[in-house]
Each structure stands twice: as structure tokens, then as C-alpha cells.
């Protein structure tokens, strides 16, 4: 039986959609107001990572599969988006689509290999596959190796919106983020999502009920990879740079950390976690290497003491679903 949701978590009461809707409204309002108060570039980056974390959470929180190599999809989508925009002159919407398609394809191949095993083996396989693709990125000419793909043009969206304007870019990223977020929400609260949760709880029982669990797991995997790809492809356009950092295993580790801190298996957890970790990295940048230590310490304390994460703890205390 493989699932990571803590058996001690009390099942929330029936008021399901209300708390989540309120949460969604608050989150959207905050994100609309924020660029007037904080550095927009930072916020856009945070939203990309939040979407990445939400995509990752789809697998671990709702299917119970720990993908330890999710940077593969994020990073390769970033590369293809950057390359198609720069070298092939794609407009931003096509570039992001190209990146996303790449991630989906990688997800399909990696997923079919990894699904054959479960639990820890699954995690190790995803990690090893991601590392293989890291080395491939290191060697391939078009990725620019250590230098990455630089000077990616922001371009003009749909031939209308000039993305060099920070606020226009921000609006586009906000729409992409909210779209991805709502898509994940729909997946979770759909019949398909219920089967996924059933697989998480007790895969043997799901099989005995007649569900082809491998197929469901693969579809979930591909969806998760694709959404991670959307995040990566968007990030490449926003920051105008795609580099090895995006495909390397510390990036995979970071998305796990973000989700863990925010709350596995909650819908807002990854968003909160992503913002929290990015703010921490930002603020602590002057003291450089301590960031790594602090991230490790947060990991350890979350695993030992705060398995539900920030949002998970709040949701548990208030008996609501978040």
C-alpha cells in the first residue's frame, strides 16, 4: 500500500467547496494587487514555480506517487520554449505550446517506464531518468550547455500584446497560472480524480474493482508532466533564459520541498509553499550558502513534525478542505 497522506489526518467535514472557493478568491485578489506593491518579475517567477509545484502535487498528493525527477519536464519545456522563440522565431504562444508538448512527450515516455514499479523504486527511477536527461541537456548543442539559452525574446502575444511591457507579461502569466490551477482543481474533483484517490488509498482494492490502475496512473503522470511543462515554458519567456539549473536534480528537490512545506494533498499548499520558499531564497540571498542548510532543515522538520505542511495544518485545525 503506497500513499503518503498521513493516516492521522482527520477527514474534513462536508463543507468542501466553500472553503476552497473562498481561498481561490483571496488568492486571485492578492495576485492582482501584488504587482503594484512588489517587484513584478519576482511575482511572475513565483507563479511559474507555484504552477510547477501544483503539477507535482497532483502526483504525490492525489495519486501517492513521489516523482523525484520532475525538473525533467519543467526544464526541457523551458529549453524548447526558449529555443523555439529564439532560433525559430516562434511567437510566445507557440513557444509555450512547443515547450508544453515536449514536456508531455517526456512525461509519456518516462511515465511508461516508471509506472512499472512502485513507491521508492518509482521515485528512484524518476530521479535517474531526470539525471539522464540532465546530462543530455549538458551535451546537446542547442541548449547552450553551461551558458544556457540567453536573450530569449519576449515577443508579441497573438500579434497584439507586447510582452516586453512588464504589466502585460504579468497579466499573461497570471492568466496561465490561474488557468492551470483551475484545470488541476477540475481534475481532482472529477470522477477521474476520485479513481486516483482510490488508487492512492488502496491500489489492490481499486484493481479488484476492475479499474486498470496502470492506465490511470500513466494519464495522471502525463497530466502532471504537461502542467509542469506549461510552468517551465512560461518561465523561459518571462526570464528570457533557459539554463541547466532548470533540469538539474536540486530543482526536483526544490519542488518537493515547496509542496511539502505548503502541504501535500491540499490544493493551495503548493502555491503557498512555492511563494514561501522563493521569498526565503530572495531574502537570504546575501547569506548565500545558508539557504541550502535552511532548506534542508525545513525538509527535516517538515518530515518529522509538520507532515501536513502549512496549509494542511490550517485545514486540519479548522476542519475545512483547502
Amino acid at each position, binding site marked *: 500500500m*503506497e500513499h503518503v497522506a498521513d493516516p492521522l489526518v482527520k477527514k474534513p467535514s462536508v463543507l468542501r467547496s466553500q472553503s476552497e472557493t473562498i481561498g481561490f478568491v483571496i488568492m486571485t485578489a492578492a495576485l492582482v494587487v501584488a504587482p503594484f506593491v512588489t517587484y513584478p518579475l519576482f511575482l511572475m517567477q513565483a507563479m511559474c514555480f507555484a504552477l510547477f509545484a501544483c503539477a507535482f502535487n497532483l502526483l504525490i498528493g492525489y495519486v501517492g506517487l513521489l516523482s523525484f525527477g520532475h525538473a525533467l519536464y519543467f526544464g526541457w519545456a523551458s529549453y524548447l520554449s526558449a529555443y523555439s522563440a529564439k532560433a525559430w522565431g516562434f511567437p510566445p504562444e507557440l513557444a509555450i505550446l512547443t515547450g508544453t508538448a515536449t514536456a508531455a512527450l517526456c512525461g509519456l515516455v518516462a511515465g511508461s517506464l516508471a509506472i512499472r*514499479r512502485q513507491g521508492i523504486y518509482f521515485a528512484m527511477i524518476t530521479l*535517474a531518468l531526470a539525471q539522464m536527461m540532465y546530462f543530455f541537456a549538458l551535451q546537446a548543442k542547442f541548449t547552450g550547455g553551461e551558458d544556457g539559452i540567453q536573450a530569449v525574446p519576449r515577443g508579441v502575444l497573438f500579434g497584439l500584446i507586447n510582452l516586453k511591457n512588464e504589466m502585460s507579461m504579468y497579466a499573461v502569466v497570471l492568466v496561465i497560472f490561474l488557468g492551470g490551477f483551475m484545470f488541476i482543481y477540475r481534475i481532482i474533483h472529477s470522477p477521474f480524480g476520485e479513481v486516483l484517490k482510490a488508487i492512492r488509498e488502496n491500489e489492490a482494492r481499486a484493481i479488484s474493482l476492475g479499474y486498470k490502475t496502470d492506465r490511470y496512473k500513466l494519464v495522471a503522470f502525463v497530466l502532471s508532466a504537461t502542467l509542469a511543462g506549461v510552468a517551465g515554458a512560461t518561465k523561459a519567456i518571462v526570464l528570457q533564459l533557459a539554463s541547466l539549473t532548470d533540469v538539474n536534480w536540486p530543482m526536483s528537490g526544490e519542488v518537493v520541498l515547496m509542496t511539502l512545506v505548503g502541504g501535500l494533498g491540499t490544493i493551495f499548499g503548493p502555491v503557498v509553499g512555492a511563494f514561501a520558499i522563493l521569498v526565503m531564497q530572495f531574502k537570504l540571498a546575501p547569506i548565500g550558502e545558508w539557504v541550502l542548510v535552511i*532548506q534542508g532543515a525545513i525538509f527535516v522538520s517538515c518530515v518529522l513534525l509538520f507532515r501536513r505542511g502549512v496549509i494542511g495544518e490550517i485545514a486540519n485545525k479548522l476542519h475545512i478542505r483547502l
Partner: protein
Amino acid sequence: MFEIFGIPSTALFGQLLIGLINGSFYALLSLGLAVIFGMLNIINFSHGAQYMMGAFTAYLILKYSGLGYWPALIIAPIIVGFTGIIVERLFLQRLYKLDHLYGLLLTFGLALIFEGVARNYFGSAGLPYTVPESLRGGQNLGFMFLPNYRAWVIAASLVICIGTWFVIERTRLGAYLRAATENPTLVRAFGINVPRMITLTYGFGVSLAAFAGVMAAPIYNVSPQMGSELIIVVFAVVVIGGMGSILGAIVTGFGLGVVEGLTKVFFPEASNTVVFVIMAIVLLVRPAGLFGRRA
């Protein structure tokens, strides 16, 4: 000097030998991982960091007490193994009742802490550690120049690996260990202190990593990220060999080192990824690994 498939024999045998050296480290590290996984069912992600700690401990021992390589080879694994015991007692014990993935996440977090602290105090460039006097120089074998130290690495790893395998598979202590893996409650009923065995096993696995670290210090330079660069390849080795198999870890470790060396000669661009490609193939054909038991 003759040619094989168009490659001069010098290059071929030279790379094979280097592959064997790399394989020694793969074997030692995957042995430690296999021992820990077999006993605790935990993937020790901090294995790479503990390997790095072994190298740093040797460096610090030299710096502050003047004791060189040979004492460090014994002292460093003991010190790092001891920290492993503390980690097991303090953290890992609490996670045995939970899903195994938590153990992976915890040791991952510990790895970040160890690497971050090392980076803070020592920077991320490599620190020098000289080859011990008695092992300097080399032999001109005709087809390549083999530094004595690297020959020692191969020999020492073989001895340790075979020794560990022997203890686990052929001695009574090893029998207790294997029994405790299969059915801890029953073994406890026989009066054997299973929790203590688990703690000591973890400590032993960690000290194996540290031992590899001390051996690596003179050739690979002592740097905080030396472990993280290596650990993922070692994970792939363990998956190929079969997660709980001691023999699998040793054979696959040496074997893959040689394969990597060969790839460097015939197809250098693929040398980094060949281990992972093999892993993908093995998973398709034999999901339990080459020497693994259950599918």
C-alpha cells in the same frame, strides 16, 4: 601498441583501468546503500553527503592534528559512522512506522544540510589532499602509466567489498542481519536486540561511504558537492543490481564502471548517460534488477 576497432590499445586499456577505479567507488557506495536498504528499507539519500564528510574529515584531521592518510582511513569512517548512529537514533527511528518515502525525504534534507554547511565553511572549489608518500609514483605498464595510488584504490575496494559480502552471507552475524530483515519480530523473540542491530547497520553503511570518501580525497579533490555528483549514478547502479542484493551491488558497481570506461573510448558523448540507459533497459526486461529477488 596495437589497435582494437580502430582505437589504440593504450587508450582502451587506460580507460578500462580508470573505469575500474570509478567502479570501485560505485561498488563501495552502492554496497553501503544496499546494506542500509536491506536492513532498514530506507533509501539513504545522505549517502553522498556522508561520503563527502568522510573526505572532509580526513582533510580536517590532516589540518588540525597532522595525522595523514593511513590513520584517517580508520578514524574518519569511525567518526562519520558515529554521526550516522546519531542520525538513526534521533531521526530515522521515528519514521519506521510511516511510509518509506518519508525516510527518503528526511535523508534528502539531511544531505542538503551537510552539503550546505560544508559549502559555507569551505567554499565550493575543491580543497587539495595529497596522495600519501608511500603510494606516490606509478608503474609504467607499457600500455599506460598506472599511478600506484589508483591501483591501491581498486585493491582496497575489492577487499572491503568481498569482506562485507562474506560477513553478511556466510557468517552467523550476517545470518542474524538477514533474518532480522525478513522478520524482525521473530528474531527479537529469540532475544536478539534488533533495534541495536539496525542502528549499528546504519552506522556501518555510513562508515562504508566515509571510507570511500577518504580514498577519494587524494584523486578527486575534497569538495562539498563531490557526493551529490556521484550519488545519483550510484542509485542507478543499485536499481540495476537489485535494491537489496549485496552481491548485485558489488558486481554491478565494478561492472558499470568498466562499461562507462569503455563508452568513453568508443562513444564519449554518451559516457555520462550510459548507466541510466542501461537502467532503463534493465527495468523493461527485468524490473527486479539483475540480482534482485522479487519483481
